């Protein structure tokens, strides 16, 4: 995973609560066996007026002029400002892959659904949670000014507004550490392989019925 320390970029504001992962990346694109190439289909049903299928040339497709990512003012947005319960529904990590492939480096919302929230960290896209009132204010500011940019300083745990005001945010220390260092979580866990084996052998004795020779067949 790439390191994430600090990032400054233009903000797009998606003013809907409960945006689900089916909306972020519709199911027909989940047939891909790769992690990349989802960006053109991000929010496909909202973004285009026709029906999207994998492999389509999106440059030629009719766009929904009302959808935020199609507004000229949000072109090139790299920080997504969203509402409550962002990323609810399906566990598909493709949702984060699509956001990231499109160019979003950070998502900010008052709350996230658990699995999506977790998936974000695994892909170097920090999900930043802020109180509802602060998010409301950011929505107003983003709406009022074209080209609104925020700086996300993960080390200092602050967002910096164009006026230079710092807004502190909370983030899980372990997750933050992994992002700052660009750590491979599997590699980290494997450092505890001995502990895992010790646990396993103890459990084999205590609950042998959970350790069949082979489960199926």
């Amino acid at each position, binding site marked *: 995973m790439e390191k994430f320390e600090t990032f400054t970029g233009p903000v797009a504001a998606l*003013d*809907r*609560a*409960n945006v*689900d992962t*089916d*909306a972020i990346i*519709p*199911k*027909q694109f*989940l*047939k*891909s*066996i790769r*992690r990349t190439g989802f960006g053109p289909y991000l929010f496909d049903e909202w973004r285009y007026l026709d029906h999207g299928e994998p492999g389509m040339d999106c440059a030629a497709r009719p766009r929904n002029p009302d959808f935020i990512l199609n507004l000229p003012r949000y072109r090139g947005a790299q920080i997504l400002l969203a*509402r*409550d*319960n962002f990323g*609810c*529904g*399906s*566990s*598909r*990590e493709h949702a*984060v892959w699509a956001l990231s492939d499109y160019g979003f480096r950070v998502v900010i919302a008052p*709350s*996230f*659904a*658990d*699995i*999506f929230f*977790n*998936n974000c960290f*695994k*892909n170097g896209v920090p999900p930043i949670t802020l109180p509802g009132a602060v998010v409301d204010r950011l929505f107003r500011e983003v709406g009022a000014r074209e080209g609104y940019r925020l700086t996300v300083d993960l080390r200092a745990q602050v967002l910096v507004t164009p006026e230079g005001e710092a807004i502190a945010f909370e983030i*899980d*220390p*372990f997750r933050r550490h992994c992002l700052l260092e660009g750590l*491979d*979580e*599997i590699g980290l*866990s*494997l450092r*505890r*392989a001995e*502990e*895992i084996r010790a*646990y*396993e052998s103890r*459990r084999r004795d205590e*609950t*042998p*019925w*959970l*350790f*069949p*020779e*082979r*489960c*199926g067949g």
Partner: protein
Amino acid sequence: MAGRTLYDKLWDDHVVHADADGTTLLYIDRHLVHEVTSPQAFEGLRLAGRRPWRTDSLLAVPDHNVPTTDRAGGIADAIARVQVEALDTNCAAYGITEFAMCDPRQGIVHVIGPEQGFTLPGMTIVCGDSHTSTHGAVGALALGIGTSDVEHVLATQSLVLKKSRNLLVQVEGTLGHGVTAKDLALAVIGEIGTAGATGHTIEFAGEAVRALSVEGRMTLCNMAIEAGARSGLVAVDERTIEYLRDRPLAPKGALWDRAVRAWPALHSDPDAVFDRVVHLDAGVLRPQVSWGTSPEMVVAVDGRVPDPQAEEDPVRREGMRRALRYMGLEPGTPITEIRPDKVFIGSCTNSRIEDLRAAAALVRGRRLAPGVRRALVVPGSGLVKRQAEAEGLDRVFRDAGFEWREPGCSMCLGMNPDRLEPGERCASTSNRNFEGRQGPGGRTHLVGPAMAAAAAIHGHFVDVREFD
């Protein structure tokens, strides 16, 4: 020491290592794998030169992408075929047990886990799928995970997690005749909202939950994720044990006896403290129908489509307006005047044998209403299908004009050819009514199996309590 909740016990039993800040390496006993969320995980594993830690903890099945019509000719959709073949190849490469597409035991991953006895009380079980919560119905800690974590569990047999909070949903009283686990699930979500249980594990308890069959408990836990909870749980009791006895992958002989002695401890202690408690009275519940594009947008069947103007919160009001526009509904419309174009009976929420029996009971000797273009019954597994056929349920459905299909996810998410056309309205026993979920522009009304069957016969929603 204060008593522990069931979740506390399951958690404590699986801690490999815990840091001071609570970051925990949790051991994972079982891992279910399907074709959509696993290929990138296997690829990652290969690229890093790693192997699955314990292949006997794995069971794989293709379900999301498979056709539900005759499978003899394979999968027509080339991209879907590649994905299913990737699962076959990965399983073969690592010696992972797979119920391949034409295996008689194939089915929806969350139906076959408990059906096979692969899911057992007291274990941790994961799957790259949010509805993994289903398996909590037998007292297992079941977690839906993303693809990176699928790879993590493959490689390390563990997950890095922080413990969630405990939420008790206490349902006292008795569900009335014709009111099912699905109605209870929808009512809970209507009550607490789709983010109501975010950061929590829900334990469902109380008289009404104990009275549910294990299948009914699965329906309930299945939808815990729709309330924002990653896991739902029901304590182990006699019913759980009877349900699991003699399942193909359940322990046998002396091992079974030992397991059965251990399992009754899997309940919350009487003095356990929950972070939150929600009380519901089962006696007042009525059959539920969703009217909007989020599972919290539900009303009782004798209610009306709500009016956004009555909503004070501006974000919610706008959400309701958008949902009504999408659904093509006017505020104030009686639910019983809504007419579905299609009916879908299936999905990991409601495709087990008792669901099919409940639906068939309403269909028997009747015909699809003329306005209903298509009605699908998609059993949750090959074994459910066979059982239903042995009981003659397939004939009941077919004689009424329903299509009787092969098992899979089907029109729950429309990744395969089973889907809604734009603007089509569906009475569906699945779990999500999101925009486009069952097909782009499709409009989903979530209901229980009998309610879906009754809507198919009458051509509009009806209160099943008046008709069966």
